[in-house]
Structures are given as C-alpha cells and as structure tokens.
C-alpha cells in the first residue's frame, strides 16, 4: 500500500518531536521511510529498483524527505536548522542511501557538501543566505575540480579578471555539476587570470588567520537568480560520464561581472578555502555510502537465506567467507569514518589526515568487498530481478559515489605531504581523548576556525602503539586474546616500519613526495589508521554502555572481539601481512550476527539500526 503524504506528515510530527539522540533521529527517519521490503512502499527496494531502471528518482521521495524535515538537518542550528553534529546529518543521509543513493545525493548530500563551504568560510550574511536557500527547499551545488588532472567532466577553467570599475568578471566553464539545472545556488572555484587574487593575500606564508593563501584561486558563492539566464548548460543524461538519474550540467560564463559579496573567504584564498571545506565534507559521503554496501550485503544474505536457485548455500565456504569479509570490511570503514567525522568536532586541528584517509580508503574498500559478493549469487549473478537487482543497483551506485578519482587525488594531496612530519613527531603511544570513538556521545559544535590544513599531531594513530603497550591489560583471553595480541604486535611493527620509511622522505620536496612510493606509503597509512580506529572503537567506544542506555539486553556483538579480530585481519591482509589463522567460533559469531541482523531487518553497520523502524511498537 502506498502511504499518503498526509499520513507521512502526521507520523513525522510525532517522530521529530520526540527524538533528539542520533539513534532516535535515525530510528524516526527509518520509520518514516517505511519497510524497505514492502513492495508498495515508495521507498522500498522494489519501487527504487523500478525508478533506477527508468533513470529517475523514486516517485515521491523528495516529498517524503521534505516532510521529515531532512533539509533542516544540514543547516546549522544557530541558522535555523537542526545541524549540531555532523555524525547525525551523515547517519540520516546514510539511511536514505540504504534505499537509494541518487535520492540521497540529489536531496541532501550534494547540498551538504556544497554548504560546507559556506558553513566553514561564509560571512554571517553569506551563511544566512545559504541557510535560507536550503530551508526554503533550494539545492546548493559545488563544482568539484581537480586542479592538475582530470577529464572533460572533472576539469573546468573559470577565470577571474579584475573589472575596470572594481571587482571581477568571470569567464569560462565549470566541471560537470550534479543538480546544476535544479540548483538555487552554486559554489565555484575560479582561477585569477593575473595570478593574484588580492594585494596582500599573495604569497603570505601563514601570517593570516585563514592559513596559506597562494593567491591563485578564489571561492565564489553564487545565487542562481543572479546568474545570466543561459549560464546553466544541461548535459545529456545519455552522455558517458553524465550523472546517472540526476540532472547535471555545466556553468558557462562570458565576461560576467561577479556580484559583490560573492567571494567566500579572502580573495585569492580559494585553495585554502577548498581544502578546509573538503576536510569537513570528505568523510561524509563515504559514510553515507556505507548504506549502499549495507543494502547490497543484506540482499545477498537474504538471497542465501531464501535458498534462491543457484545461490550458494550458507554452508558453502565461499559464501561464509564472502559474507563475513564484507561485514568485517564494512565495520573497518565505519570505525575509521566514526573517528574521522567525530574528530572534526573534537580535534579539528588534526582532522585533515584522518578525513583524507577515510576518503582514500572507504569507498574503494566497500566497492571491492561488495563486488566480491557477486560470486555468492552463482549462475544468476547478472540477473536484475528482485534481490539480485537490488544488489547490482547498489554495487553500481558504489562505483558512482562522488567525487570519484578527483576526490582521491585531493585527499592524497592532503595526506602525502604530511607523512614525513607526522612520522618524525607522532605515532608514539598515547591514549585517545574522551569520546573520539563513541557512537553516541554528543559532539561539541564545529569550530571551523580550528581546522588546520596540516595536522600538528596524530592522536588517532597513537592508539595503535598505545594498544601494544597495554596489550596485557586488554580484556580478552584464550585463543581470541592470543590472536588479538599477535595482530596488535604485527600492526604496531608495521607502523614502525612505515614511520622509518616516511622519515626517510625529503619532507619539503613535493616532487620527491608525489611519487608512487609516496602514494604507497599513504595507502599503508590509511590502512593502519583504520586499524587504529577499530582498536579505538573496541577499547574506548560504547561497548556495553549504549546498550544499557537503550535498555537492550543483548550481550552486545561489539563487545565480542570476534569482529575486531576479523576487522584487523582484513587490514593485515591488505597490508600484505599474514592474517591470524581462521577460527571456527569467530567465523560463526560474525556469520550469526550478519544473519540475525538481516532476518530481523537491522542494519549491518556499527549502529545496528532497525530498518523501517521495525515493528510499530519499537
């Protein structure tokens, strides 16, 4: 049965009135989205798959999310929205991604990522303008740009030239922008044709509050209403590289005078503005993408449980390994994302490295371990009906998570130059600050002024040597204890080896850092950071605590080291280190949890959410 919007709105009124915690908010949204398995639900898998085939968004999706008030979730509370912690906004959009990535992107994440520029760098007037635009139902879009590499769609060239009467004129074309034909506002990065944005901002080393200005670019916040009428050039949805299921286009300018008040941050400061905004936004979409991997894995487990013809049975070694590996990989990603996103609030000075690590690692890892599930489906792996189709759709969506290769290039640019310094000064044992690994502790407001382009320390990585030092105190015994201790020892040794190699790099020579060797070191860093995050979540997270708060009596899967050992094993494997020997109990524990969560309609990520809100009594 299709729910009417009146019913939806009535349900929302009660949901939003009561829920304030992250868990509560997500549960309220899940109830609002309805049972994903209901064929009559506009946001159920059947309707979403049909919309995907038509190349459009699920019917009624935008209205449903509007009725919930999802737009308010991406606008900071002081500006009239509900955004306080980025974790909540992200988890809500992850719930939407669990249904449909394109809907989540078009309705929310594209605007959130663009609005991060204004939240981090806007003047009070620019922030108020952005908040109003979003709360009025408008969308904001950003032109992601790789400044040194890309393709026809990812590289644009916008130039600013000083106008005789003051200010600038804008020329050229942007890269492809998702939502462009719909957007009510745009964030763009333009190059100063004369190489300098503003007198004193050029060449300053670090003297200004906004950090290092290279004077070459400026970031612009533009209203759609102010643009020349033909500035937006839609791109055909049939073109290779176009955004699937969302309208997209370029912006083109020909000597267009930029309105006053459009520059975000100081003129010429565009590179730093972009870096700092990306620092905030880049772990968010990968975290939402966990929702796609979640639904894909669930579809496969359900096909296995239903004993669909040709699908490998739960007793098959390959099926067990693929399911538990994919589950463990998802938890690895979620631990790193949890720490990276929380660090933006708790340790903004150091967050650049971890959010970059999350961007480099997460989507690639999710895509790969989800892809490995295809073989479980057996001879009908390429079929598109029912659960098979839902699996394939979410796998395809994972390959389309923005910003793709440009994002990796930008994240590597943040990561690689910092490795020599961090290797010389950090990566020694220290306990983490309170709350970094909690999935439920409230977060202080984001303070963009504290975001540094480069970190002075690495508190997250310090968890790994700290775990090694406190190995004997780890609350785990028997074969699990043995496995875990040897894993921590091996990973800490790998960190020492990485440190040695990074200290050997010429710290100040970009040409010597930007080499395959430097990138390989960066990848090993991301894997070790993920391992540190897993240890952090297990040692300092909510084990037990939030369960008690929730009044649930389950023993708590997250307390069992089975998931941690499996997660660290996946990291070890990727680092080329030997994994601990397979252990029947641990495989069973992981498999049983995955199966139970699928059977009961709970999410497979760290948060273990009841999908569709579960039974009405929940």
């Amino acid at each position, binding site marked *: 049965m299709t729910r009417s919007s009146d019913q939806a709105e009535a349900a929302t009124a009660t949901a939003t009135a009561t829920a304030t915690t992250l868990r509560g908010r997500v549960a309220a949204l899940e109830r609002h989205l309805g049972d994903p398995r209901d064929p009559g639900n506009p946001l159920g898998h059947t309707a979403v798959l049909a919309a995907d085939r038509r190349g459009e968004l699920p019917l009624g999706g935008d209205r449903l999310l509007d009725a919930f008030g999802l737009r308010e979730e991406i606008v900071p509370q002081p500006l009239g929205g509900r955004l306080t912690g980025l974790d909540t906004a992200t988890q809500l959009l992850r719930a939407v991604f669990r249904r449909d990535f394109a809907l989540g992107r078009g309705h929310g994440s594209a605007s959130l990522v663009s609005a991060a520029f204004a939240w981090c760098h806007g003047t009070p007037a620019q922030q108020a303008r952005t908040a109003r635009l979003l709360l009025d139902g408008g969308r904001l879009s950003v032109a992601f740009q790789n400044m040194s590499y890309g393709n026809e769609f990812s590289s644009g060239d916008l130039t600013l030239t000083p106008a005789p009467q003051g200010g600038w004129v804008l020329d050229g074309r942007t890269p492809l922008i998702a939502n462009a034909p719909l957007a009510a506002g745009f964030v763009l990065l333009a190059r100063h044709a004369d190489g300098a944005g503003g007198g004193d901002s050029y060449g300053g080393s670090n003297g200004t509050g906004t950090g290092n200005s290279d004077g070459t670019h400026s970031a612009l916040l533009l209203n759609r209403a102010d643009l020349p009428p033909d500035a937006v050039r839609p791109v055909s949805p049939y073109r290779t590289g176009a955004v699937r299921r969302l309208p997209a286009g370029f912006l083109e300018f020909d000597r267009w005078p930029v309105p006053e008040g459009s520059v975000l941050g100081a003129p010429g400061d565009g590179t730093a503005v972009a870096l700092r905004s990306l620092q905030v936004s880049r772990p968010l979409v990968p975290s939402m993408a966990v929702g796609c991997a979640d639904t894909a894995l669930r579809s496969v487990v359900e096909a296995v449980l239903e004993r669909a013809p040709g699908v490998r049975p739960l007793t098959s070694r390959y099926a067990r390994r693929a399911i538990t590996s994919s589950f463990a990989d998802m938890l690895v990603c979620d631990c790193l994302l949890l720490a990276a996103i929380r660090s933006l609030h708790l340790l903004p000075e150091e967050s650049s490295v971890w959010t970059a690590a999350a961007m480099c690692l997460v989507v690639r890892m999710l895509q790969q371990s989800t892809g490995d599930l295809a073989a479980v489906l057996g001879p009908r792996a390429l079929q598109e009906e029912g659960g098979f189709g839902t699996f394939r759709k979410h796998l395809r969506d994972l390959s389309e998570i923005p910003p793709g290769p440009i994002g990796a290039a930008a994240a590597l640019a943040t990561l690689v130059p910092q490795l020599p310094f961090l290797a010389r000064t950090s990566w020694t044992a220290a306990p983490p600050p309170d709350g970094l690994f909690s999935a439920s502790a409230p977060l202080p407001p984001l303070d963009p002024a504290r975001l540094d382009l480069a970190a002075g320390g690495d508190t997250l990585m310090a968890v790994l040597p700290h775990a090694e030092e406190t190995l004997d105190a780890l609350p785990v015994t028997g074969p699990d204890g043995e496995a875990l201790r040897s894993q921590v020892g091996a990973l800490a040794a790998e960190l020492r080896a990485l440190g040695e190699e990074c200290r050997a790099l010429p710290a100040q020579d970009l040409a010597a850092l*930007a080499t*395959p060797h430097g990138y390989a070191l960066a990848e090993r860093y991301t894997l070790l950071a993920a391992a540190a995050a897993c240890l952090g979540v297990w040692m300092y997270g909510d084990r037990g605590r939030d369960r008690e708060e929730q009044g649930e009596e389950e023993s708590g899967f997250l307390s069992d080291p089975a998931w941690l050992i499996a997660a660290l094993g996946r990291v070890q494997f990727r680092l080329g280190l030997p994994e601990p020997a397979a252990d029947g109990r641990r495989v069973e524990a992981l498999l049983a949890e995955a199966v139970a969560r699928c059977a009961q309609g709970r999410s497979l990520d760290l948060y273990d959410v009841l999908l569709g809100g579960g039974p009405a009594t929940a």
Partner: protein
Amino acid sequence: MATSGPRGLAGPAPVRVTAPDGPWTAADAAMEEQGFALVYGLTADWGDHGLPDDELGRLLGQEAQRYAGIRQEHTRRRFAASRLLLKYAAGAVLDADPGGLELARNPNGRPYLRGCGQLEVSLSHTGDILAVGLSHAGPIGVDVESSARPVYGTGLAEESFTAYERAALGWLPEADRNTSMIRLWTLKEAYSKALGLGLRLPFTSFGFTIPAASGATARLLRSDGSPADDGDWHLESHTLPAGYTLSAAVAPTAFGPARRPTAYSVLDTTLAAAVLSASPGSRPDTHPSPTPALTPPLTPTPAPAAQGAHP
C-alpha cells in the same frame, strides 16, 4: 563507457616488448588513445634480465621475500620476469621509477599498484609468454592461452559455456570451433579477473558473443543469452603471432574516461603545495624535534645588544 577509444572497436594489437628500455611508444600511444594498453613478453627475454640481486630486490620490493621462497627455478624465473615486465611497463606509462611501484593484492587476489589505483593492472602467463594489461579507464583483466590448446570436444564447453554460447559455437565451421572456444574462454578469464573474482565466478553465469576474428570485440550476455545491462564493458580478443590468444576486458567507469595519469599528477599538486606549506614542519620557528631540544629555541628577533650596536 569503459575506454576512450571508439566504442565497439578493439584497440591496436598487443605489442611485444623484449627489454626494460622498451620501446614503450606503442603502449604509450594506446594508453593515450584507448585508455588501456596490452603488452606481452617472453620469459626468455624477461627471465634473463641480468640484473644484480640488489637491483632485482629493489624492483620486486615487497614481493622480494615471496620470490625468494619459490623453490622451483622455472617458476621463480617466471615470477621475476612477470614483475619486471609489469613494473617497467607501468613505470613507462606513468613516467615513474619502476622500483617505486609496489605490486599489492586485494583480498580477492586482484593485483594493483599500491597507492596508484588510477592505473589498473592485470597479469597473465602461459607457457613461456607473459601478458600485461594497463588501464586508466576501468579495471582491466587480461588472459593469454595457446590458441592451439585442444579444448573442442573435451567437455569444457558443457562445463563452462552457456547454452547460447554452445549453440553459437555449433553454427561455426568445425575448423573454427577450437579457436573460438579459446577466445571465449580467455574472455571469461579476463572478465572475471577484471572483476577480481577469478574462478569463483561460475563461468556459466555470464557469456559473450563470439568475437568474429582476431582483433574483434565481444558483448557481455547473461546466462540466458540476453544482453546484460551492465554499463559498457569493453571486451576484445587478439591472436598473437606466436600462436597465442590474448583477451582483455575493461570495466566501465562511472566518471568517464579520465585523462591519462602520470606519477606526479596522481595527486592534486596545487592542493598538495598548499598543504605542504601549511605543514608545521615547514615553519622553522615551530619545527618540533622528536627528542627534547638540548639548546634553547632560536629567538625570532635579534638580541637587543646587537640592535644597540647599530645607530
């Protein structure tokens, strides 16, 4: 679409390379025009590399230990030869030191260059031939097999081909069937390798139209013979002069074919320069040292006495 070349047309025939110094111009051109390149070499050429042990060790990098652990001389030689071909080829197209490239494996076994995911790689060997696929479009899989290997009438078709493929083979003149079966088989290997699934993916779960000749492309089909709605896989098969069949599969990329990466442009250099200059390590006044400083930090302003010395 998977590649930047014309849709439905195979790229240039794979190029044989005999030594580290190339020539790599053909591979370079293929990368530029198609988004991917296929090269092959003989173990005889690449096995007798004449490299000193320490240089070979440097080139093998993280795999040096694995290499040393291979007991059989023949296998060890081929292992080194395949790594050298792959790293020199990748180094040539990336414009990078081959010794700086680290060949790693995903948990599913699919090889990749650690940290350089923009350049996808695939390796295959049979007999004394080594094949390498490089792609900056989607993930690539290559497979090489002797064209003369007798497979027709061995039961392979029943095990590994879909009903459609078996029927299509049945319409071919008998003399062409073995060759076509090798093409289909190598395409299946190449496709599963591009997916990273290897032999775990049942070969009857997907199929192809039979490539009409050497240097032809194929289309991906479902197990029932209907065309698979799976983006735009690029699938092609070539017969090499030495009597081998080399097939390649390039997966579609959602973001469109990217410009060809070079080692330096894998990261965004404009952003990296800004991060580097913001790094605390680049500020001389705050440069920390891992051990407590033994001397007092430098004072930023000249001592008053010195100031006083000048009028």
